[in-house]
């Protein structure tokens, strides 16, 4: 393949994925507002567009047009850098996520930006870099609420990152690969029965991942860094307009990424839940769109779970959060690894 073709195709792929991803972020916000509204026995946004469907657009417009205030006491370079880091890390992780069949065109995978042997590791490393955005934002804001919020967030993320990473090891052991495509392939044969979460015996890993992921994305019930009642706005107290929007997008982007990863690692990725019960589709369109449908459906199911949990569970206290992460999740993840390795080695 020619270099120019490679470059053009890559640019096109990136553009398409980014657009879809950002749209998805926007509508996840709407979804959340709607769902939480229903849970709390109200309607949620209904005014803008049918069923309030245009609400995200208006919100975005508002944030774009708002005055960009930079408080005088902040440490400017990092204050400006922090939201960029947060958002770019959030966007970066989508680059390795395969969301469709392993189709190639001129030797290049279509439904993934870049398919790497070490996709999972890249995901983890990007997640670990993401901490900087929050940490720097809080510190550079020169505000005690911000600092406390960012310290909490950083500590929480570092702590739960361990459990998160370890909960994935069982999956990796089963697939014997770090490539996300390979991991999905392992789960594809018997449909739901071979998904890691069920057939793969990784139900505990999944639960651990679930909880760790909530904490990792600073979502309820682990949303202490932005606990309004204690810290006003947490690390983004001093941010407004577009810079605030970037943090906001980063958070929801992370949610989607995490959901994608859960889908890929535990829920069989783009494969159908019926596996070889159904005959392979002969139609090309169905063959292409079917997997994408399943993938999106699973991701949204996971997102639904996210929002559901947010609507139902109360917030943890900070020490409970830490001891839960270190004293329960981490050992549980280790036990899971040991158990999985024993099963794989002797059964």
């Amino acid at each position: 393949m020619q270099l120019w073709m490679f470059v053009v195709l890559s640019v096109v792929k990136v553009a398409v994925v980014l657009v879809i991803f950002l749209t998805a972020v926007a509508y996840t916000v709407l979804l959340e507002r709607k769902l939480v509204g229903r849970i709390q026995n109200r309607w949620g946004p209904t005014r803008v567009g049918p069923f309030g469907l245009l609400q995200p657009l208006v919100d975005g417009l508002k944030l774009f047009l708002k005055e960009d205030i930079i408080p005088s006491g902040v440490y400017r370079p990092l204050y400006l850098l922090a939201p960029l880091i947060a958002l770019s890390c959030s966007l970066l992780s989508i680059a390795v996520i395969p969301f469709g069949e392993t189709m190639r065109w001129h030797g290049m995978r279509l439904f993934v930006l870049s398919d790497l042997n070490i996709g999972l590791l890249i995901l983890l490393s990007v997640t670990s870099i993401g901490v900087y955005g929050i940490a720097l934002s809080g510190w550079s804001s020169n505000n005690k609420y911000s600092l406390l919020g960012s310290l909490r967030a950083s500590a929480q993320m570092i702590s739960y990152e361990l459990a998160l990473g370890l909960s994935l090891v069982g999956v990796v052991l089963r697939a014997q690969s770090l490539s996300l495509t390979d991991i999905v392939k392992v789960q594809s044969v018997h449909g739901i029965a071979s998904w890691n979460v069920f057939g793969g015996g990784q139900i505990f890993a999944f639960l651990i991942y679930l909880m760790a992921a909530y904490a990792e994305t600073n979502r309820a019930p682990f949303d202490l860094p932005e606990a309004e009642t204690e810290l006003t706005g947490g690390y983004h107290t001093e941010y407004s307009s577009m810079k605030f929007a970037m943090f906001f997008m980063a958070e929801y982007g992370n949610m989607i990424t995490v959901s994608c990863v859960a889908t890929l690692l535990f829920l069989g990725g783009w494969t159908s839940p019926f596996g070889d019960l159904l005959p392979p589709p002969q139609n090309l369109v169905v063959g292409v769109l079917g997997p994408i449908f399943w993938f999106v459906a699973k991701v949204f199911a996971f997102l639904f779970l996210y929002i559901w949990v947010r609507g139902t569970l109360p917030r943890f206290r900070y020490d409970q959060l830490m001891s839960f992460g270190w004293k329960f999740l981490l050992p549980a993840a280790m036990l899971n690894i040991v158990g999985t390795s024993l099963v794989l080695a002797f059964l």
Partner: protein
Amino acid sequence: MHLVLFLIFALFALAGAANLLLQKHPINSALSLIVVMSSLAVLYLLLGAEFLAMAQVIVYAGAIMVLFTFVVMLLNEGREEKTWGSHAARVVGFPAVVALLAVLASAILRAGRHYGMVSLSDGITTTQDLSRVLFRDLLLPFELTSVLILIAILGAVALARKDDGNA
């Protein structure tokens, strides 16, 4: 392509390192160092060490440097001051550095002609290759390293804990 990537990231690395030296505030130095490390991760990828590249990011950038920034934030030391405590550093140290660089460079340049080229198509050391060596030939050192880290954790906890008695 390889050349371009190398040049870009080598430049990034050098610039980051230089920035580390020039910046007066520790947090800026830390961020510069993160840049260096990330650039090195890319260089590792170029050298076919993909696992190491990711480990570099996860361990160095994601863990160690987070600790550094954490400590900087925690202690909030501010800009460093110019002090003149050590004559040896100037009188002995900097000539030594120059000598060191000269010797290293000359040694590398003298020996460099024997070395081959590095290109993108060189093949990749997979994670399996790495783990095969690590968990077969070097299992004992690996386990010892884990013990070392455990001890380090305990030591760090013991050191950083406030004294119960007199604090």
